[in-house]
């Protein structure tokens, strides 16, 4: 159930993950640059374990996994919990990983914008949230541009490189999306105009 379908950005596409993607997943999870930037989706493992993880992910009721590609080349993954029963219908982005060899090319922003368009314009969610390491400047730039605001800050949360780093908890509400991107970022052309 919870392998994500196609979401098209301008330069990137989020698509259903396949077993062919798994060697790259494993490589990224073993990359210290990725591990420094944010939470990884599982530790590096043998191919059989990765296949099992993908199978388990497909059974997840509320967490959705996408692979991200550009020009047919796999460059990352995104994973979000989608739901809201007692809370407003919402997405919580748990993992958003871009291959370090593809950093600083704008792919993260493009894929993030497309993913949020899917959340708000397609699923009609009311909010989206995530947590970031406070020194991940690239990720902070993306969430700021999208319209996220910090609602909490954990101190000395993650340990790496011999020191602790803070964690920033950020939230974006639907009205912010509507105001910034509601008119320009649409999953479909309005039906009235398409007829």
């Amino acid at each position: 159930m919870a392998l994500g379908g196609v979401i098209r950005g301008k330069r990137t596409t989020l698509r259903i993950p396949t077993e062919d993607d798994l060697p790259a997943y494993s490589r990224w999870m073993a990359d210290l640059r990725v591990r420094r930037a944010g939470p990884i989706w599982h530790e590096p493992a043998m191919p059989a374990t990765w296949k099992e993880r993908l199978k388990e992910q497909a059974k997840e009721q509320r967490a959705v996994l996408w692979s991200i590609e550009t020009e047919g080349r796999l460059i990352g993954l995104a994973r979000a919990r989608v739901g809201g029963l007692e809370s407003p219908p919402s997405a919580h982005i748990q993992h958003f990983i871009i291959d370090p060899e593809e950093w600083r090319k704008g792919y993260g922003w493009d894929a993030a914008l497309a993913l949020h368009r899917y959340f708000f314009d397609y699923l009609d969610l009311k909010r989206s949230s995530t947590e970031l390491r406070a020194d991940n400047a690239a990720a902070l730039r993306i969430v700021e541009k999208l319209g996220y605001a910090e609602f909490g800050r954990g101190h000395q949360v993650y340990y790496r490189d011999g020191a602790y780093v803070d964690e920033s908890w950020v939230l974006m509400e639907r009205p912010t999306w509507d105001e910034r991107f509601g008119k320009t970022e649409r999953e479909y052309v309005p039906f009235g105009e398409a007829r």
Partner: protein
Amino acid sequence: MFGPRLVGENGIELRPPTLEDYKLFTEFQMQPEVTRFWGPRFSTETVATAEERLKRHLESSDSVSWSIVYQGETVGFTGVFDINWASRDGETGIFIGRHDLYGRGIASEAVRLRMAFIWNELGLHRTHNWIALANRGSWRANQKSGYSQIGTYPRSWFRSGEWFDEWLGEAFPGTFPTDKLPSPWRDEKHPK
């Protein structure tokens, strides 16, 4: 894993949960009086699957769980969960399943025992939690043992026509009040 027996004051103690406790926990979580700030009041867990859950928690390497006992009776549970052993950070939680016992300081004492164990035996560097802002008794109990507020998550969930925010807290070994250190850690003969 399950935590060891920790004896507090006023007849309150933490002890490793039993199968009977697990059956009780399922019943607690289905009661309207104690779920205003806890869960959706439905579950896939049943009394019949209690043993399976107990084994899962017992074998878990990233959590420590206790039953809370008041005057010999199990009245709730607490623990530290999702421990990240590299960052030495974990999420704490507490649930009192007996609304007739609210206001007796059970949560405060349970939190004090739990935090003393976390800092003195697990070697964690930090803990954090999310508590309904309206559940003052719960976050006050945590504050007394060194938690402080680090944020507010707005409109976290909906009950009886109202949206409730959440109180986000964190604690460190250095924020635990030294004069509240329970036995055995405060005992002179306890090895340092």
